[in-house]
């Protein structure tokens, strides 16, 4: 089951590659079909998932036997929402880019290849396999940004690739060190390896570099605005929606349970970086004149809440972290899609030029307002759940309260810059660029609707998400306490 979910998109890649030049418009149909089937399979996974059952749907056999590398997949309540998110956002990304005209074959093949890597990262339970999928993600994203991106795409693609590679090679060193110490690449078995605190501290540092670049945590975030601004809409959606989560997922899946002593030692440092990321991201978002950049910096701020929950290390904190990860994926996906849709019509992303959407394109404007309000964490929408829980978790941990207060200020800032965005873009009298544009077409609304539904669903009925996350996180904290 899991292997099918991971490698089905690869089948799509092969099918698309074999299309002849004349029939390249069929690429989007293949990609849509494959991504849809993958989403259905991921949903079946969620339906058949036993919330109290720990690691499930396990597939495990020797891969490179002499060295102890396994092909080992499994999902628990933390990875399941991520797998679902990546399958959903892939489908959304594919349908959202139906109109792509430049090299459609390569474009859709890259998105499907990206899905292989994303799903794989969230399912892999062997370190080498994890690393394989982790790096696999770099390649399609490099091409998506570099080929279909904005004017500075080559620079942005290169920066994205090198930055992330820089982080992940340190992760590789950490993996090698862990392997030589404990004699296994098995992520589950390593949780009770009984590693000495000094050793843990060093390995944590190596993993920190790998994960923190991906999240990204201040001050390792500078690749993100470039990549986001230059990336095509669908790539932005996947980048913010899924790729950033790989970093925090790494902390939760690997750093916390395998290196619990080090996690406790590093916690004040992580908390400080989290709080700084929250406020810094928010403050910089304030100053942006480009909508896409604003959303990009708001991501830095939101991912700070995830890091805050992780730094807290309490059950509430980690549950909150996972909830923010899920919600941010959905909401930021919406925001990037809407910014992209507006851009397609007005050919500008400058906030000044895009005023008064509501009178001209009420549907787009309404959805924009909805997504912005969801992003600022209004109770009743999904963003609130995670931020609330991670703040509570952080407050209850032995973290310095100053960081929690700083983070709470960040919530206010988020409300301010998001509402200001709504005020400028949605309300007011239409600007010149907006005057002639048409409202969203049915395809575009269909792309956004599932995301709206999830935002409302999770926001009103928390249990929809937390029934998966909570038991898994309690298992995790039990491991850390032991």
């Amino acid at each position, binding site marked *: 089951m899991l292997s099918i979910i991971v490698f089905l998109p690869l089948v799509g890649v092969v099918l698309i590659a074999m299309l002849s030049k004349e029939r390249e418009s069929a690429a989007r149909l293949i990609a849509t079909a494959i991504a849809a089937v993958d989403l259905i399979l991921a949903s079946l996974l969620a339906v058949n998932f036993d919330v109290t059952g720990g690691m499930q749907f396990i597939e495990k056999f020797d891969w490179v036997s002499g*060295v102890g590398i396994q092909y080992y997949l499994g999902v628990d309540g933390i990875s399941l929402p991520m797998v679902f998110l990546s399958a959903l956002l892939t489908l959304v990304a594919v349908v959202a880019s139906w109109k792509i005209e430049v090299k459609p074959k390569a474009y859709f093949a890259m998105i499907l290849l990206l899905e292989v890597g994303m799903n794989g990262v969230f399912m892999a339970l062997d370190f080498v396999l994890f*690393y*394989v999928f982790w790096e696999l993600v770099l390649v399609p994203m490099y091409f998506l940004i*570099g080929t279909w991106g904005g004017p500075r795409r080559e620079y942005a693609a290169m920066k994205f*690739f*090198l930055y992330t590679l820089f982080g992940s*090679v340190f992760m590789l*060193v950490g993996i090698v060190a862990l392997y030589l110490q404990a004699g296994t690449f098995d992520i589950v078995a390593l949780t009770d390896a009984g590693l000495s605190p000094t050793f843990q501290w060093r390995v944590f540092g190596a993993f920190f570099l790998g994960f923190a670049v991906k999240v990204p945590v201040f001050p390792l975030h500078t690749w993100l605005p470039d990549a986001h601004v230059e990336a095509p809409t669908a790539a932005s959606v996947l980048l913010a929606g899924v790729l950033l989560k790989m970093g925090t997922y790494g902390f939760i899946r690997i750093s916390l349970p395998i290196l619990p002593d080090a996690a406790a030692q590093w916690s004040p440092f992580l908390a400080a970086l989290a709080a700084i990321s929250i406020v810094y991201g928010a403050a910089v978002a304030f100053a942006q004149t480009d909508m896409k950049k604003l959303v990009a910096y708001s991501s830095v701020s939101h991912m700070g809440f995830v890091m805050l929950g992780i730094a807290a290390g309490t059950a509430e904190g980690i549950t909150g972290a996972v909830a923010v990860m899920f919600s941010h994926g959905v909401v930021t996906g919406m925001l990037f899609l809407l910014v992209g849709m507006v851009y397609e019509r007005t050919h500008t992303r400058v906030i000044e030029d895009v005023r008064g959407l509501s009178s001209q394109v009420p549907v787009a404007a309404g959805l924009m307002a909805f997504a912005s309000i969801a992003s600022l964490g209004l109770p009743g929408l999904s963003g609130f759940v995670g931020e609330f829980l991670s703040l509570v978790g952080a407050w209850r941990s032995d973290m310095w309260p100053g960081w929690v207060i700083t983070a709470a200020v960040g919530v206010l800032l988020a409300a301010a810059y998001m509402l200001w965005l709504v005020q400028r873009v949605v309300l007011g009298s239409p600007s010149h660029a907006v005057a002639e544009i048409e409202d969203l077409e049915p395809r575009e609304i269909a792309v956004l609707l599932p995301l709206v539904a999830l935002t409302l669903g999770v926001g009103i009925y928390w249990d929809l998400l937390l029934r998966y996350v909570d038991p898994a996180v309690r298992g995790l904290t039990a491991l850390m306490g032991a």
Partner: protein
Amino acid sequence: MSGYWLLIPEYLLLAGALSALFGDLLPGGERSSAVLGALAAFAAAAFAGFIGTAEPLFGGMLVFDPVSVFARVSLAALTGVYLLWSGGRGTGSERSHEATALVLLSVVGGMLMCGARDMVALFIAIELSTMPAYVLMGYRRDDDRGLEGTLKYFLLSMTTSLIMLYGFSFLFGITGVTGYAEMDLTGAGVLGVLAIVFVFVGLLAKLSAAPFHYWAPDAYAGAPTSSVAFVSTVPKIAGTVAMIRLVEALAPGATQLPLLLSVVAVASMVLGNLAAYPQLDLRRLMAYSGIAHIGYVILAMATNTSTGLAAAVFYMVAYALPSMAVVMIAAEEGSAVEQLSGLADRRPWTAWALVVFLLSLVGIPPMAGFFGKLYLFTAAFSAGYRALVVLAVLMSVVSAGYYLRIMREAFFGERVSTSAVGRSIPASIALALLVAATLGMGIAASPLLGYLGVSF
């Protein structure tokens, strides 16, 4: 002496070389020559694999252990792929049947190097392997720059051979034997150190490791690109095997050896990777990148553990595959990096193959280069070379910069040149084989590693 049949692969290569010389008289001309040669090489690879491990020959002069078998098969198979490609291209360069013969003769030497555990056998094998390479590098008689490059290559290669031979004479003087089995340098003092320095300086220069590398970029840049594809990659596999055998034999009595090797490893990794950056000619760029990769290999040799040495050979093959392929593509498209511009539009399949090769060289999974690096770094880390491993991984990030530059040119570059080469089916097959091998050596390497004895 009943073991002569063990050398069937070498006989096949020799027969291939001789028939290639006359193959141009067959219908099909130069092409049939290359096809004959490719067939001989593939047959040699199959036989070498079929024969497998065996008792040593000539009283221990030639051994047939797993490393030797793996290296012999890889050498012959890569040569087959190379000849398939060069024959299929049929660029009509004069006397290409002679080139085929020279390549095969050079590989005979390489095959013997893989098994040699005796100084005399090794020296003869090295000379047999390098002599044809001189001719291949200077193949275009009318090109002055090429002649300069090849002259440099010839003179320096001869000098290093002689330095190595000088070292061998010291070793013989100290120990009184030429076979590695009884060679023991313990208590040899300064003379022993001198012997080791001479021997390894010679070998390192042949492998183009820094600081003995300076001939490589000039020689490659002056030579026909299609010759560089062979000379800069395949013989290095044999050289690596020859070197790990010497390390194995001499390290017990020479405590300075790991230090010497780690210095060379650091110098090669840093210099190779940094110097590759500004290069505009793919041959020069790949020459420097080769220096960098040999640095990683030497890092593994410095460990002198059986796993480290086996990982070194595995890595060398994992490097040679994509590296040869990149230079092949350069030979088809033109050797300046910017001539690759627009490759993705002209030849999308080739462009994506190039991506696989380049990413393998960076060390991105699931390509062979990643797994090679994983085993190599794990071996070095467990032997205590932690700082060097960190340096090595940082350097592989640095290397991503210039490999991505090639990729960027091929995919995002403005189309400036048009490919002069027509499509040829054998050449495409050759590239496809290299793609399959580059992926396969990573994903399905389990039996191979077990065979080589890589385990931690």
